[in-house]
């Protein structure tokens, strides 16, 4: 089925043949073939680490392929760097935006595509063009705004405008909706459809099967570095796509018994957090979580969820009151750090396991004690008891099915899902009264998601209180016993999962309470 040898088809905007790419020992792309028709929206799905971003980065000249060839518009094209890709009419919006944070929108747009050696004429010209593009595609952004002051949705528009400014015919978007509210996502899709109707070709990487079904014309599935299938969207179903992605049938729902909430474990009143720049991130949070209950916090990233976790976890300063098991927790002063919180029975699976939850250069056994390294059982006298840590690690790896079960491997050498399992094992096995858990399945493959969800529900069923923060509405809906929606540092509404739907939550996440209040 590989296209090698077949004559080029001018109707194809892109054709990739035999693309391979390794990062050291990791083979991210293996002999990949891909054909994208002109004027279509082509979806690419696959588990985390399947190699989607890598493949697109190769197409955009960000990485160099080890082998394979690229045909653009039927012509074999060398793409040694991004400039070549831009010249070939390709634009890309990366999963992690490539914007200069302290530059203005305008400066970011012209960067690399300036008109001449002097800046002023380039900027003037770009300002005009930018306004026109913004009008054409209903993408309102202030050209003089500084990127770091913009929300992610706006930043994404800048990335798209950047590509359009360079007159891209082929637009690659890598997980564009991960950071958007449902309304923003809808808007984006309108724009994409408009672009397609103009004859542009769009490649869309996403994890959300619903979106694939909604907007793409064709969809390709990647699994562990290989392209496993390409199907017409009209001819497939979410269940089939999920199976193609993982290689086996997947439950897209979580099985759980109804909650039996007990006494209140955590009570939060008027919690406020101001960050180092002096911006108020939490503007008076009130919430309460009972034993045996999962409170899901939904919201678009950046609306204060991270700060909520941090202040509860003990490493952001805040004001207000937090009571755990009817005891007030010190919010300032020396007894307000993560170590004391842990001693009080709060465990925390942080949102970003690689930045916070693990020391990537520590071995697995060193990481299982992380945060609990003062525990008597990990210490003997003035020294740490490394043997105890190793034994503990081996046991946890066994129970949580961490692969490979080698305590001596450095954390960075585990895959994302296994890293997450190590963190979860560490925190859950503490048997905490309250578990804070942020983005439990971010960057985790579908198989592991099932396992992780089961563990969370099991902990709840033991009568523990759980605060779940996730940007994935599906996850929130599936796990929570109650849902709180955060917007702009406040809890803007609380719903029961049985009495709401994604539409309503989406509106709340966008800060629209009017209709819901009615």
């Amino acid at each position, binding site marked *: 089925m590989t296209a090698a040898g077949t004559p080029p088809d001018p109707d194809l905007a892109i054709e990739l043949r035999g693309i391979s790419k390794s990062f050291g020992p990791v083979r991210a792309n293996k002999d990949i073939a891909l054909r994208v028709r002109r004027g279509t929206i082509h979806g690419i799905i696959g588990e985390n680490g399947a190699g989607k971003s890598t493949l697109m980065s190769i197409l955009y000249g*960000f990485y160099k392929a080890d082998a394979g060839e690229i045909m653009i518009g039927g012509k074999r094209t060398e793409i040694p760097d991004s400039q070549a890709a831009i010249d070939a009419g390709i634009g890309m919006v990366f999963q992690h935006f*490539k*914007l*200069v944070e302290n530059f203005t929108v305008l400066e970011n747009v012209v960067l*690399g595509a300036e008109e*001449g050696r002097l800046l*002023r004429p380039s900027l003037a010209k770009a300002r005009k063009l930018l306004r026109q593009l913004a009008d054409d595609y209903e993408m309102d952004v202030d050209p003089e705004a500084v990127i770091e002051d913009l929300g992610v949705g706006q930043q994404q528009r800048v990335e798209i405008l950047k590509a359009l400014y360079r007159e891209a015919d082929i637009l690659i978007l890598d997980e564009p909706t991960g950071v958007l509210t449902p309304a923003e996502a809808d808007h984006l899709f309108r724009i994409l459809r408009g672009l397609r109707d103009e004859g542009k070709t769009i490649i869309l990487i996403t994890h959300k099967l619903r979106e694939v079904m909604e907007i793409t014309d064709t969809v390709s599935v990647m699994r562990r570095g290989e392209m496993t299938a390409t199907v017409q969207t009209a001819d497939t179903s979410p269940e089939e796509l999920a199976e193609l992605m993982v290689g086996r049938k997947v439950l897209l729902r979580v099985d759980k018994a109804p909650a039996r909430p007990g006494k209140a474990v955590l009570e939060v009143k008027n919690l406020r957090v101001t960050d180092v720049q002096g911006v108020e991130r939490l503007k008076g949070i009130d919430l309460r979580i009972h034993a045996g209950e999962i409170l899901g916090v939904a919201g678009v990233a950046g609306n204060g969820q991270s700060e909520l976790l941090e202040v509860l976890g003990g490493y952001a300063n805040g004001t207000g009151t937090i009571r755990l098991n009817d005891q007030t927790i010190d919010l300032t002063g020396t007894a307000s750090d993560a170590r004391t919180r842990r001693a009080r029975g709060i465990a925390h699976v942080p949102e970003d396991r690689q930045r916070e939850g693990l020391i990537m250069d520590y071995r697995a056994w060193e990481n299982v004690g992380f945060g609990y390294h003062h525990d008597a059982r990990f210490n003997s006298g003035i020294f740490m008891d490394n043997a105890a840590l190793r034994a503990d690690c081996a046991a946890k790896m066994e129970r949580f099915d961490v692969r490979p079960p080698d305590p001596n491997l450095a954390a960075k050498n585990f895959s994302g899902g296994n890293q997450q399992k190590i963190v979860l094992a560490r925190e859950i096995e503490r048997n905490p009264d309250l578990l804070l858990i942020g983005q439990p399945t971010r960057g985790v493959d579908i198989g592991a998601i099932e396992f992780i969800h089961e563990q969370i529900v099991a902990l709840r069923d033991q009568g523990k209180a759980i605060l779940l923060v996730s940007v994935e509405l599906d996850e929130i809906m599936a796990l929570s016993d109650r849902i709180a929606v955060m917007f702009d540092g406040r809890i803007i509404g609380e719903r029961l999962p049985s009495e709401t739907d994604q539409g309503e939550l989406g509106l709340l996440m966008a800060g629209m309470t009017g209709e819901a209040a009615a």
Partner: protein
Amino acid sequence: MDFLGIIQILDSALRLATPLLFACLAGLFSERAGIFDIGLEGKILASAFLSAAFAFYTGNVWLGLLAGIVASLMLSAIHGLASITFRGNQLISGVAINFLASGITVVVGEAWFGLGGRTPSLMGGARFAEITLPFADAIRGMPVIGPIYSDLLSGHSILVYFGLLCVPLTWWVLYRTRFGLRLRAVGENPAAVDTAGVSVVGLRYAAVMICGVLCGFAGAYLATALSAGFVKEMSAGRGFIALAALIFAKWRPWYALGATFLFGLLDAFGNRYQSLDLFGVDIPTQFMQALPYILTVVILAGFVGRAIPPRAGGKPYVKER
């Protein structure tokens, strides 16, 4: 202190600030592009040596200047190779360059001149002469303006004026040209520059080379304008002070002028008032000599607080782990 005394201190400050200014702007280019450079000191020293050596051999200070720039550029190339091409640790590379310059200048100097690392004294055309600005003599007599123009502004070597000119020039390049935009971007987020189709490596090398040229001026100024030849270790820590000034200036050109002038002023002041008698307490010379360093610490702690360096600074650009 009388008016003339002030003028004289300012005059001295200007001279002392000039090498710092060159070095500070050099560091600014490099660090704005994301390459930290604690090897300024070494580059100044190497340039001072080679400029003096060539000025002596050729009798032409301009050829000396050129040679100084070449010397500094060679060290820049090493720094670029280590920190850009081979993605090494920029601080280590800087430390090595400082050692290398202190050693090689003396080793080579000894081999060439046999004077223990000194170059022979430079005479006449082998040194930068002092320039008298037009009408300086005519208006010297005028009150206030006279001394300011004729004593403070006039009578410096051409490099002083060039150094001052470099400030607006740097500002213009940084904020008004395509190159400047890209340079600033590469120090903040090299991936953005890369995906915009511009070579990160090319930009960073360009910045490191500009840094080399400017350090070349600093060294040549020391050896062929302020003094008349090279003496080993004659940079005497000025590269480090320039670095402090750069942080104090928050990596901005006009602030760099202010910061280096402040250090020049502290130095000039310390030279003038080496032993102070404060309310009957005899302040020892050593305290006055340490004062610029103490003040640097105080300034860093108090006024600058957290100076935010270019975000990608010091980190090699690695796409693939």
